[in-house]
């Protein structure tokens, strides 16, 4: 946490640069409005985690930030420009998104999957280049899956598979990365492994990350900023210590819990109260 803060401060003018912003967006599918009149700013060099109960509009918001869903009102701005007015291929060189539990076609190798991350850098007149080759090899090595390059994605374990997808996003070479529940379906050890990888993307590769997370304790540990949502609205945002409080947990999740300092990192740790053995 502290190291991140000093690092971003050291980068001077970039600290407060807004990379991605939602301005009064209304989001929904068909007639159903899920998010209304929402504002959000994502600063350069930060890791933001969006938390909230199921169905609160977290993923919908992430899809809108990644221009997969067009707001019916308001705008999403990428580096100050309206994202819906930018060529989609140009957006794809700045911003990448991994949906929840993506699926690869059967038989696709890890190497080929990561290579497809180079799609926005190619055109009919500029196919596979040396840059692409380098970016793919680098992404494979950096995520520690160079050994698996020839293995079909569908034969990997859940943790390996998620690393392969993150490797693809890394090969895409975008400064911003949106991750929709990157730890779904993973056991705790692999959840930590994936989030460590996300943390390294941020600290070593300078990526700005926005992710939807379910686990509050991991979110508090790995994110610089938390955004807590309920019923399509942002109830609180700020540092983990500011957001993860006992009153807020009651308000957002309807959960009675104690918040104590995490014995390892000092970040807030949520201990639900419940009724059993209390």
């Amino acid at each position: 946490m502290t190291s991140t803060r000093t690092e971003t401060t050291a980068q001077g003018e970039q600290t407060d640069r807004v990379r991605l912003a939602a301005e009064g967006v209304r989001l929904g599918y068909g007639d159903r409005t899920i998010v209304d009149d929402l504002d959000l700013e994502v600063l350069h060099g930060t890791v933001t985690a969006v938390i909230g109960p199921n169905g609160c509009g977290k993923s919908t918001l992430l899809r809108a930030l990644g221009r997969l869903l067009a707001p019916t009102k308001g705008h999403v701005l990428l580096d100050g420009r309206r994202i819906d007015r930018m060529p989609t291929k140009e957006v794809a060189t700045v911003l990448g998104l991994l949906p929840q539990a993506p699926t690869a076609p059967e038989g696709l190798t890890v190497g080929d999957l990561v290579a497809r991350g180079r799609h926005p850098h190619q055109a009919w007149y500029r196919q596979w280049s040396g840059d692409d080759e380098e970016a793919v090899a680098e992404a494979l090595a950096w995520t520690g899956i160079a050994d698996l390059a020839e293995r079909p994605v569908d034969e990997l374990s859940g943790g390996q598979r998620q690393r392969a997808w993150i490797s693809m996003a890394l090969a895409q070479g975008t400064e911003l990365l949106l991750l929709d529940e990157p730890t779904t379906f993973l056991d705790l050890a692999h959840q930590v492994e994936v989030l460590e990888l996300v943390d390294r993307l941020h600290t070593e590769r300078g990526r700005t990350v926005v992710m939807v997370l379910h686990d509050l304790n991991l979110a508090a540990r790995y994110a610089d900023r938390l955004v807590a949502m309920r019923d399509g609205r942002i109830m609180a945002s700020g540092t983990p210590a500011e957001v993860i409080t006992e009153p807020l947990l009651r308000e957002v999740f309807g959960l009675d819990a104690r918040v104590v300092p995490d014995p390892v990192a000092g970040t807030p740790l949520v201990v639900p109260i419940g009724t059993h053995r209390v």
Partner: protein
Amino acid sequence: MAVGTAQVAEAPRRPPRSKRSLRTRRLAGLIALVVLLVVVVFLSIALGTKVIPLSNVWSALVSPTGTEDDIVIRSLRIPRTVLGVLVGAALGLAGALIQGHTRNPLADPGLLGVNMGAAFFVVVGIYVFGVTTLFGYVWFAFAGAMVASVAVFLLGAAGGRGSPTPVTLALAGAALTFLLSGLVSAIILIDTDTLDAYRFWNVGSLAGRDAEIAGQVVGFLVVGTLIALASAPALNALSLGEDVARSLGQSVRRTRVLGVVAITLLAGGATAACGPIGFVGLVVPHVVRAFTGPDYRWLLPASGLMGAVLLLAADVVGRLVARPGELQVGIVLALVGAPFFIALVRRRKMMSI
């Protein structure tokens, strides 16, 4: 699939070698298909209802003197072979496209209503306009294929968020197919002359199609092929799911529109020239996927080649089994193809795409 468990366990230790082996396998597969195609083309020129000695076949090709054999080969068998290659390749490509766009391994180009649209317009052509020649059917069939697939695309797009999804396309295609087949039945029930003409068109065949018919559709097939081959990177992106494709900067809507245009040109052109021919578009992508894997830059050209080989081979078989008559290629494909397809499905589980 050559990838057994033993090989998988070894792969991590020797990555460069197995990478080369994947490319080698794809190249070897493509070369094998080209060789097969050359062989089948030769057989298609050499074999037929009329037995022609090989020496005469050769002289008809290099130094024709206007003998009866020369005429059979140059004005019947060569145009028929050319048409077979064109139509087979078009159907194979259209099959790979529709399966890629729908991510459904059981999708068939007929899903867009192309066949029934063509059939309906042909029936109208016969019944209302008194068209009676194969040459005359071509334009009716092609127009019908166009109208049907545009209607299916618009219907499929109407329900969703502006861009048709595989499910809405399939539903719209099925609905329109039922409607049109009802109308076709109504007309051929009323008028037996139409029934007589229609039932011959409705069995896909390469017989009786001359160079002129091939000339009518070749332009559409070439344009469709170019669009198809150019869409390989987009289909590769799309195979990772729509959300990933879009975040990789691929415009899904544009890809879908181009896909429907290519499928209509290819399947519509093929149906216009030869009548509805099933099975090729369904099975060919499965067969070639075994060596190309899910990369459309390999899968598409291989499907085109394989489609040509399959259709032409079935046509040659049809000429030989029922001498002195012949069996239409559509019937041969159904008779030989169905058991083959069942065996394929039983041998290994259907690849999900």
